[in-house]
Structures are given as structure tokens and as C-alpha cells.
């Protein structure tokens, strides 16, 4: 249990800027996720904390102490690997005991702690098995037990669920979360799966191109994305780029006049809206107040039981995804039908076109 501080971490690989002066602070006992597409620098960041990658400049502090010069094997960090990295020539018990043996703990204590750790991951009674007799999910549970049994200051997880099938992924995800809560270990978790990140984390840092775009709770990341990148990467998002603005922030879009005061003085804006925030109506449907109202033609419909997904080709040119909750037979418009889309202004996200940064609505 320790606070982790990363201060101006810089790492340049030949031709690739992996980490561009990254600053992060992870609170004691927090479950912190680094989220981003492959090559964004999240794994480099994790391996820098572990001690497998040496940063070009910057400081790593754990519980206030600089650990940059400490070799990986003396850092007292637990790590869970994407490919499990279970030692195939050792039994489950020996795998879990490995770190305790390195620390020279007495035999009795090792046996007790190994048994306890295996119970924690619901693998009690598996100590004598060899790894190849275990399923992928069980192997990763061994990896988890092996990492926490040494009572590390921090726990690092490098896409631990990406080699598992969907059902196991959700199951083990919940187990990891429960275990982390009950032990209270400061945890840094790396994933490219935004759904996983939202479900499991206390806070998320969204990374791209070696930079952290936004740090926040899952709700903040999803509902108030700070950049267009975060908006598009986390969850589904419709983006309408380069919308021209008139005097006082009036939009050149929609069948009824529409104005956003905080856009006054700008010439263009990028509008983003989540599919679930759109209201789909027939061609003669209501025109909602305080909303951007667009018209178009249904291009595609996919019915998925409790919801339906529409793709609408707008008259203005862009395509927009719309979700309809609990669709009724009569509300199912066919491809080719003209429709009207209401986008409540309060649900719209506004971004500055060249920088992609969020324009906050005046409150």
C-alpha cells in the first residue's frame, strides 16, 4: 500500500516517442487503469514502474522514495502478465512460493501464505498441479496469487485478461476487483479495452502517443471527455466535424435555428454526441425544444432485442448512429425511410477543431 508518483517520465525509443513527459499520481489503495490503443505508451509506463524499462528522464516515487535506481528484483512489486508467465516446470504451489523463497521466508510461513493466497483466488487444493493441467483462466489466477502473496507495495497488471474468452474475462475481472479491494493494494492496470477499464477502475488515465489525455473517474471519462480522442476512444461516439458557426454561436446545421452562447466568437466547431443521447423520430415527428434537429434517411437497422441500432445518413452529409431503447414494432423504421433526429443541446459535446480540446458549456 503506497502512493505512486510519476514525475515528467520521458522515454524515446529509436523513432518512437513512447512517453512524453508523463506526470501521474496514483493514490494509496487506488485501482488505477492506463487505457489506450496499442503503441500509446501504457505498457512502457507500466514496465518503467516495474523496472524493466529505464526512463530517459523523470522520477518514479513509491511511498515518497525514489526507486529509479533500484533493480526490478528489489522493488517489491507484484506483476501479472498478459501471457500469464507461469513457470511451466514448477507446480502451482511452487509458482506461488517462488517470490517468498527469494525473500528467504521460513518454510512454515511460506506454506501457510501460499495456501492462503491460493484460497483467495479459489484454487485451494490445486497446489500440486502442474500449469499445463490448468485452463487459461486458472493459470491467470495462479499469476494473481503469485503476485499478491509477496504482499507487494504495488500491483501491476499488463492486460491480464486479453488472452481469455469473453465470459471468463468478465468473471475474472470481478474477482480481480474484489481481491484488490479486500487487500487494499495500490494497483496499476493496463488495458486497451475501454469497457473493462470503465468497469474495474477507481480512476482511469487515457493515453495516446505517449501523452496522458485525461485522468478521471470512469464517469468523468465517459461523460466529460476532455479531448476528441478520449470522446471517440471511450464508448461509441458520433462526430460531426467542421460545423460552421454564425453570429453569437448560431449553428449552420439543423431544421430549426439553434444557438450555443459559449461558441460565440468561433468560426467552426466539432460536435460529438453518443448514440444513446439521440432521439429518433419519424419524418413528421416532434421537434424538441433546446435541441439540434437533423433530418436524414435510414441507411441500416440492426435489431438487438432490448435495443436497436440505426445508421442515419444525414442530409448534411455525415452519418450518425442512433440507439433506440426497447424498440416497438411500429417504431422500427425501414432502410430508406426519412427520419428526424433530435439531439438535446445539453447532451452535446463541443470540441475546438484544430486542437481537439473540449469547450465547456457555460454554467
Amino acid at each position, binding site marked *: 500500500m503506497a502512493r505512486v508518483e510519476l514525475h515528467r517520465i520521458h522515454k524515446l525509443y529509436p523513432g518512437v516517442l513512447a512517453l512524453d513527459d508523463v506526470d501521474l499520481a496514483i493514490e494509496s489503495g487506488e485501482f488505477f487503469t492506463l487505457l489506450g490503443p496499442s503503441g500509446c505508451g501504457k505498457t512502457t509506463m507500466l514496465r518503467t514502474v516495474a523496472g524493466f524499462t529505464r526512463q530517459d528522464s523523470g522520477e518514479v516515487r513509491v511511498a515518497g522514495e525514489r526507486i529509479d535506481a533500484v533493480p526490478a528484483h528489489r522493488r517489491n512489486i507484484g506483476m501479472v502478465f498478459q501471457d500469464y508467465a*507461469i513457470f511451466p516446470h514448477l507446480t502451482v504451489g511452487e509458482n506461488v512460493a517462488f517470490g517468498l523463497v527469494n525473500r528467504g521466508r521460513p518454510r512454515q510461513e511460506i506454506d501457510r501464505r501460499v495456501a492462503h493466497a491460493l484460497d483467495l483466488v479459489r484454487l485451494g487444493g490445486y497446489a500440486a498441479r502442474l500449469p499445463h493441467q490448468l485452463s487459461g483462466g486458472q493459470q491467470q489466477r495462479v499469476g494473481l496469487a503469485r503476485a499478491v502473496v509477496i504482499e507487494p507495495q504495488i500491483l501491476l497488471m499488463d492486460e491480464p485478461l486479453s488472452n481469455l474468452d469473453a465470459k471468463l474475462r468478465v468473471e475474472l475481472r470481478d474477482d480481480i476487483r474484489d481481491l484488490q479491494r479486500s487487500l487494499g493494494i495500490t494497483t496499476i492496470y493496463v488495458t486497451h479495452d475501454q469497457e473493462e477499464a470503465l468497469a474495474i477502475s477507481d480512476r482511469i488515465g487515457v493515453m495516446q502517443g505517449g501523452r496522458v489525455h485525461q485522468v478521471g473517474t470512469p464517469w468523468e471519462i465517459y461523460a466529460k471527455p476532455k479531448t476528441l480522442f478520449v470522446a471517440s476512444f471511450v464508448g461509441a461516439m458520433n462526430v460531426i466535424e467542421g460545423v460552421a458557426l454564425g453570429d453569437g454561436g448560431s449553428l449552420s446545421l439543423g431544421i430549426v435555428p439553434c444557438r450555443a452562447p459559449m461558441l460565440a466568437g468561433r468560426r467552426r466547431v466539432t460536435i460529438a454526441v453518443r448514440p444513446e443521447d439521440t432521439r429518433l423520430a419519424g419524418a413528421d415527428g416532434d421537434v424538441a425544444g433546446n435541441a439540434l434537429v437533423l433530418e436524414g434517411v435510414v441507411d441500416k437497422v440492426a435489431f438487438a432485442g432490448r435495443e436497436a441500432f440505426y445508421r442515419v445518413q444525414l442530409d448534411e452529409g455525415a452519418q450518425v448512429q442512433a440507439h433506440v431503447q426497447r424498440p416497438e414494432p411500429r417504431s422500427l423504421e425501414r432502410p430508406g425511410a426519412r427520419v428526424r433526429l433530435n439531439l438535446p443541446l445539453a447532451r452535446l459535446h463541443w470540441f475546438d477543431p484544430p486542437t481537439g480540446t473540449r469547450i465547456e458549456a457555460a454554467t
Partner: protein
Amino acid sequence: MSRRSRLDFWSGVLIVALAVVVLLMLLPLYRIFAASLIDNRSGVLTLANFTQILGRPAYEAALVNSLIVGAGGMVGATLLGIPLAALTTRFSIAGRDLLATLAVLALVSPPFIGAYAWIMMLGSNGWLRALLGEVGIGLPPIYGMFGILLVFSLKFYPFVFLLTSSGLGAISPSLEEAAESLGAGPWRRFFKVTLPLVLPAVSSGALLAFVLSIADFGTPSIVGGQVRLLATTAFDLFTAEMGGNPGLASATSVVLIAISMAVVVLQRWAVRRRDVAGSLIRRPSTRRLGPVASVAAHVACYAIVLAGALPSLVIIVTSFRKTRGPVFHPGFGVDSYARILGEVPQVIANSFTYSTVAVAMIVVFGTLIGYVLSRRDTMASGVLDGVLLIPYIVPGVVMGLAFAVTFNVPPLQITGTAAIIVLMLFVRRLPYTVRSSAAILKQIKGGIEEAAIILGAPPWRAFVKVTLPLMLPGVIAGALMSFITAINELSSSLILYVGRTMTMPVRIYLSVLDGEFGTASALSTILLVATGIAVFAVFRISDRKESAFI
């Protein structure tokens, strides 16, 4: 700190490896190349040695004969190997493991043993020839080109067989079914789908047969009669009593290397776009044959492998025949063994000592170099990887000659010592172990070492506790393989030996030339038993993978 010292250790390994390679591979080969371009008497730079090979009928014949032997050995091995592979992988043949084991035994037994066993059967006084003569089948003695090709075909077919079998085993049946559903008949399916997919495997086996056929020295000199080849010519030119001809011997060697290299390049080019590694969800299954076809298939399979294994059986039986001096008497006994233990215990001891020392060196160097090559990607390791291909294409005779001319002058004067023979065995087999351990390491994920480190093990401890145990089965199997080839090495030892450093293969060769078949058979049996034990051990370790022997 530990990071830096680790860097230094592996850099040190790289430097030592490069030094070994320069001293034991590049320098000797450079000496051969240089000698081939220099006139023996005047010492001036000349191409005369090469024009002689192409100009004088005797040398030209040797060149042509070598090409015939290479092509013939390759064709023979392919004609035996492909049908055997196709039958055993596609149809249910009883005793598939037995067939594969016999093929492996034929593969690992030294070729000169096969040569003289066939002479005992089909030579001028061969018992099989006499037997066939009595029933009215008159055969000429097998000396000459026919004998060479017979021995090579039966000796090298296992390469084609084993490689093609694993190639066929890796083709998903869905591919053939897809071709069928798209309207391809059986023949079209075979030529358009199956054959192209298995071609890299077949051609690798065929290539090996070609290169080993032209490189082999023992077989043509025992069974070749008047047929001269490049390998035997180079040997004779170098060792001739009346002042050899090092220039011409070297030029002959260079031509041999050039042919091997050309064949390797040709094979690489032929299979350049054919990466057949695909995901294999369904394993190919075997089909049952009708009764007539089944009998025919079994006869064909067993005829091939038994013919391949026959020489070894003949040798073992012969070693227990009663002898007085070089003459066989009716009945069985252990006279030949008594004789070799009395006369040449030193030879037996030499063989085991040299091979063991060479293998120990190979294991240490091969494992360390393999680790460097697989975990570090620098220019030096790239160069090393390329240079280590040399022993694959340089015949033993040539390497022996190169060692003899390089290490007979101070400060590197070691000719006539046991060291030169051990170093030769070491350098000839080192690349195989380097490659196999690099391949093993590629399968051990790097993350597993990191897992050990993050759990508190210092890097050396992570290597010893995790990496090494995982490498060990592969390393031991590789060591046994090296032992098999080391203890059976003839051609280079024949050039480098002196009386007190004689090895078993050399003694067998000399005994055969003197007509002492009893002595030769007893020594050969010891070699076969040692080899057989090593094969058994490899099978135990490597989970019965016949491909481990290639």
C-alpha cells in the same frame, strides 16, 4: 549496476564467439581459398588450379561424377522418402513408430558402415550375390556408381521421409476439402494444393541428401571402385605420398563448397514465398485401405526401411562370426571383440574421449551463443548467425584439409594432437546446437524471466531457476545428437589423425580397406550401440520426435 554487468557478460560471450568463429572457421577457409589461387612452385597468384579441374579429363570426370552422385543420391532418397511419407501419413499402416525408428537408425548410422555392409552382401565375394547367383540371378559386383547411389539412397531417404511426413502432417485437411468442394479432382488437388504446401519440406530433405552425398568421403572410397569424385580427389591430392598438390586439392575443395552453396541458394529461392505455417485446427486423419492395396502399401513401406536398416543388422551379425585373423570361419564367437580389445583399446577410448570433450564444449558455447543470438539483435550477432552457416555447406574433407594447412605452423601448430581433432568435431557441430538452443529460447517467452525477476530473483538466479530448466531437455537432446555425429565422424579425422589419435571410424575405414571385416564389424557394432543408446535417450527426452534428428 546489475544491468551493466549483465550487458558486459553477454558482450563478452559475443566477443569470444566471434573469436572462435574467426579462428576455427574463417581463417582455415581463407587459407584454403588462398591456396587454391596460388601456384604451388612459383607462389604467384593464378587461376591455373581451377582451369586444370575443368581442363584435365581426370578432374573433369571427378566434377561430373560428383554432380551425378549428388543428383542421384537426391533423386534416390526422394523416390524412397516421399512414397513412404505419403503412405504412412495418409493411410493406416501398422507399426508406424517402428518404421520411423528404423528410419532414424538408418539416418544416424555412419554411411561408410552402410557401404562396407553392402560390399559384404553384394561385393565380389558377397554372400547375397553368391546366394542370388545360385538361384540363377547373376549380378555384377556393386563397385562403382551403382553402389554409391544405392548406399546414398538408402542412407539419406530418412531426411526426405521425416521432413515430408511432418510437412504432410501440418497441412489442414480443410485445405484439401476446400479444393475438392471447388471442383478439383484428386490429381489436381495433389498438384495444386498438397504438393506446393509440402514442397518446402520435400526440397529441404532433397537438398540435404544432395549436399551430404557430394560431401561424403567414406562411401565412394569404399564402394566406388574406379569412380573418382571431388571429395576423394581432394583427399588423394592432399595426402599423396610423393608430395601432394595443395593448390589443386584446395581448388577442388573450393569447387565442392561452391556446388553446395549453389544448391542451398537454389533451394531457398525455390521456396522463397512458401511459408506454410498455418493454424491447424484439425489434424489430418489416416484412411483405411482395401486389403490388396493395404498389403501392397505395407510391403512397400517395410521393404524400404528394412533395406535401409539391413546394413546395420549385417554388421552386427558379422561381428559375432568366428574369425582367425582376417579370415571368417563357420560358427559364431566373440573373436573379433577379443581382437579389437587386445589390439586397439586406445582407439575406442579415443573416440569416446574426443566426442565427450567436444560435446561438452559444444553444449557450453552453443547454449551461450544461442542465448545471445535469440535475445540480442545487434550487427555482431547477425554476422555470427551468418558465419555459423558455414559448417552446413563445407564438407568434412574440406574442413579437415583447411585445418591441416592452417594449424601446422607456429603459433597455431597443433597438428598431430588430440586437440585438433576435438576442435574439428567442435566446430563441425557447434552451429547445430547454437540454432537448436536459439530455437528453444524463442519458445520460452521473455516474460517468464521477467516474472522471476519481479518476484525478487536477481537476473542470474532467474536464468538458473527458470530459463535453464526450461532449456535443459532441448540442450540435452542437442548434446546427444552432437555426440552421435561426433563419434561417427570419418572424413576430417582421416585427414587429421596420427597413430595415437586414431578414432574408431578411421580404424574401421582402414580395416575395410585391408579386408579385415571382422575387426571392422566389431568396432562398427560398438559405434552402432553407442549411437542406438543416444537415439533412445533422445526419444525419451524429446517425446518421440523423429524430426529431432535432422
